[in-house]
């Protein structure tokens, strides 16, 4: 039997602070842009970032990345300080192996 080729993923729930309304897609684009700025195109490809879905809660987004790449995503979020002229920050709320776990519905 050959080894499994399916790579494990992690679902990262992000929360925006300091801004009244921001769409999850905007939050994902902010993170992807920052990962690309810091780690380059190759780094962005390595993280395997993708947008998962909108969450009902305000200013919360769930994004997906590779299992070993969570630190890079956390690192990139630290550098996100504003969108346009508005000062804001993104914080990682929860990390899980499932979307359900990341949103927090048990």
């Amino acid at each position, binding site marked *: 039997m050959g080894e499994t080729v399916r790579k494990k993923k992690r679902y990262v729930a992000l929360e925006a602070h*300091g801004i009244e309304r921001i769409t999850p897609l905007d939050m994902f684009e902010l993170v992807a842009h920052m990962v690309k700025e*810091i780690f380059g195109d190759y780094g962005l490809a390595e993280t395997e970032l993708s947008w998962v879905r909108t969450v009902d809660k305000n200013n919360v987004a769930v994004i997906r990345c590779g299992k070993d790449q969570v*630190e890079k995503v956390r*690192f990139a979020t*630290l550098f996100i*300080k504003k969108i346009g002229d508005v000062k804001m920050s993104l*914080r990682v709320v929860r990390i899980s192996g499932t979307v359900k776990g990341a949103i927090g519905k048990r």
Partner: protein
Amino acid sequence: MKTGRKYTDMYVDVDAFKDNPELTLNTLRRLGFKSAAITHRCPGRDLTLVEVKSTLGLELASRLQIKPKNRFELLKNLRVYRSRFEVIGVKCLNMDVARIAVRDSRVDVVSFPLENPKVRLTDKLAKLCEAAVEITVKELTEVRVPRHLILQRLRNDFECASSNRVRLIVSSGASSVTELASPMDLSSIPAVLGVEKMESLRSVSEYPYTVIQRNKMKLGGTLIGNG
């Protein structure tokens, strides 16, 4: 899995906060911190903070951040303020100050300005270093130097610190609620820049917490020192 780590933010600038300190401390608690070292200069505020910390279950320590221009100013400040603050941090603006600060046991944490490439942690300094070396997220994100140069410099500093067994502390240096970061986010900085995972976690838990506890015992008169 709960590891029982006591996460500590070693540098929160409460004085600079325009919003109330209660909100700040509440956010710190919500982010998972068990203790924090805060800078505060207004004596009137101390009482409020003591009341707040008891309700939140957050251990607070007073911190003084000094930026001496020369060794005489550093030694004078240490003589005057050491007994009044639980944590003393020194920002080394030149190598002359750095050489004294890293050796002095009265200094708890030293930091080096990221915008000046000449003032940095060298092997020679690291061998003498008794204090912990601190990196603040605020400085890291706000400094006006190309990012690749900062990351390159930090990588070298971290390598130098770990090869000489110098303790590394990562703190937020926050002056507003949006600048506060969770302990795991803080620990991602050394983790990404080549430090071992467990060591990265120690830089936001064990190392800062031990400094605060030891100094509290010292100032409380319960610590029996060597000699």
